[in-house]
């Protein structure tokens, strides 16, 4: 087994160098995919036969929601790595990804609310998915506030890792319970559209947007991780050389 790659991953300097090479590509590809996808979705995709043009919000709402949820899972995976292998880079990832996850959860909730107004008639519905997303936003807030409350960097990243893991154990339970609660309190459920599958002209732009948002997320996470590394490693020689040079 070659473990060199794995050990290299733990080195902040190695990550800093490598991410510097990939970063411009991710930014360019991410932004261009997002622009292409939203223009495609806004202008060229056919309108929904029930919801008309308001369904075009889907091209923003669904990618943001997917990213918001998977961001927490990524954080949980790196929390495990951080606690088991004590890898510095995993801590840096959690610190950098949490605010982004909160931002995209907010975007998903906001677009969901705006989409709800024309389709359901209200801005907010205590629907299972919306409520679960709201709880996810609270979880992100908890992670961010624990992180900022503890000043010692090492302690704060370990504490955050534990909290993220506790949260990820709870997420399935919360999701399941919210769904149960929803069927109890709300017999008349709102369904988005009751039609078969989406036509390709509709879902291809959606796919483009999802890939674009992941590229964008990777780029921004790398940017944030690089900042975090600079701050954490400011006493090392390579950072000092970089700053002065």
């Amino acid at each position, binding site marked *: 087994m070659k473990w060199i790659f794995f050990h290299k991953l733990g080195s902040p300097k190695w990550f800093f160098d490598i991410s510097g090479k990939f970063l411009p590509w991710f930014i360019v590809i991410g932004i261009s995919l997002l622009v292409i996808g939203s223009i495609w979705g806004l202008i060229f995709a056919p309108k929904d036969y029930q919801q008309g043009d308001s369904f075009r919000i889907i091209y923003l709402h669904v990618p943001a929601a997917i990213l918001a949820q998977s961001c927490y899972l990524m954080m949980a995976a790196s929390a495990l790595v951080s606690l088991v292998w004590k890898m510095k880079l995993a801590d840096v990832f959690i610190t950098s990804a949490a605010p982004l996850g909160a931002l995209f959860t907010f975007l998903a909730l906001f677009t969901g609310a705006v989409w709800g107004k024309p389709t359901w008639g209200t801005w907010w519905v205590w629907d299972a998915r919306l409520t679960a997303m709201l709880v996810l936003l609270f979880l992100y*807030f908890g992670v961010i*506030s624990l992180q900022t*409350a503890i000043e010692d960097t090492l*302690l704060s990243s370990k504490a955050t890792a534990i*909290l993220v893991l*506790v949260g990820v154990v709870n997420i399935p339970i919360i999701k399941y319970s919210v769904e149960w609660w929803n069927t109890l309190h709300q017999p008349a459920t709102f369904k988005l559209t009751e039609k078969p599958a989406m036509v390709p002209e509709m879902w291809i732009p959606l796919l483009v947007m999802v890939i674009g948002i992941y590229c964008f997320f990777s780029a921004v996470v790398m940017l944030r991780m690089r900042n975090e590394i600079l701050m954490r490693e400011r006493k090392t020689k390579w950072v000092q050389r970089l700053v002065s040079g």
Partner: protein
Amino acid sequence: MTDMQQNINLIQVLKRVCVREYLGASRHRQAFINPLVFFAIIIALFPLGVSPDPKFLSLASVGVVWVGALLSSMLSLDNLFMKDYEDGSLEQLVLSAQPLYLIMLVKLFVHWTLTGLPLIIISPLLAVMLYLDFDHLPVLLLTLIMGTPVINLIGGIGAALTVSLRSSGVLVSLLVLPLTIPVLIFSTGAVQASIDGASVNGYFAILGMLLMLAITLAPFATSAAIKLSVSN
């Protein structure tokens, strides 16, 4: 020396943790009474703020009692580890040869008998003030008996993570409250089902599962967090 250490076995350590906890509580009685008063005030504020109409109140009573119980148990989390952290006894517990998991479990259980039980004892009184039907009181009590330990166990994780902070105040609630949502949902659901005349078995099965999960998993996270907080 080694004989001495072996003589203090696990049961004795747990017993001492227990006794110490009760002794500490008897010296700071106010810290355990305040959350109860807070609980009563929340319940009293609700009819004043919304409506004193008996029909409406009996509909809302379960939810109000449960939300009040949740919030007031957040208040008592602060004095769970704080004193032990400040006088260094938490460090001794971490260094002791006995499993921290069991010590934490005992500590949390004692804490529950001091905060959760009184809450459960006064809740029928408050529920009746909100016009909850007598027939459904046992169900409410049973949900509280099964639900408040879960809240304490999850709260213990939050308290352990923030024990090294000077002012943890709202932070603990922020960390813990989202995680207690399932308990709230299934507890109020059980009472609602009993009011609707439906079977409550399913709800109690799930509450039992949550309790078992919390007992088995939460002390692990708590002791990991305690070790972390003490190490710095």
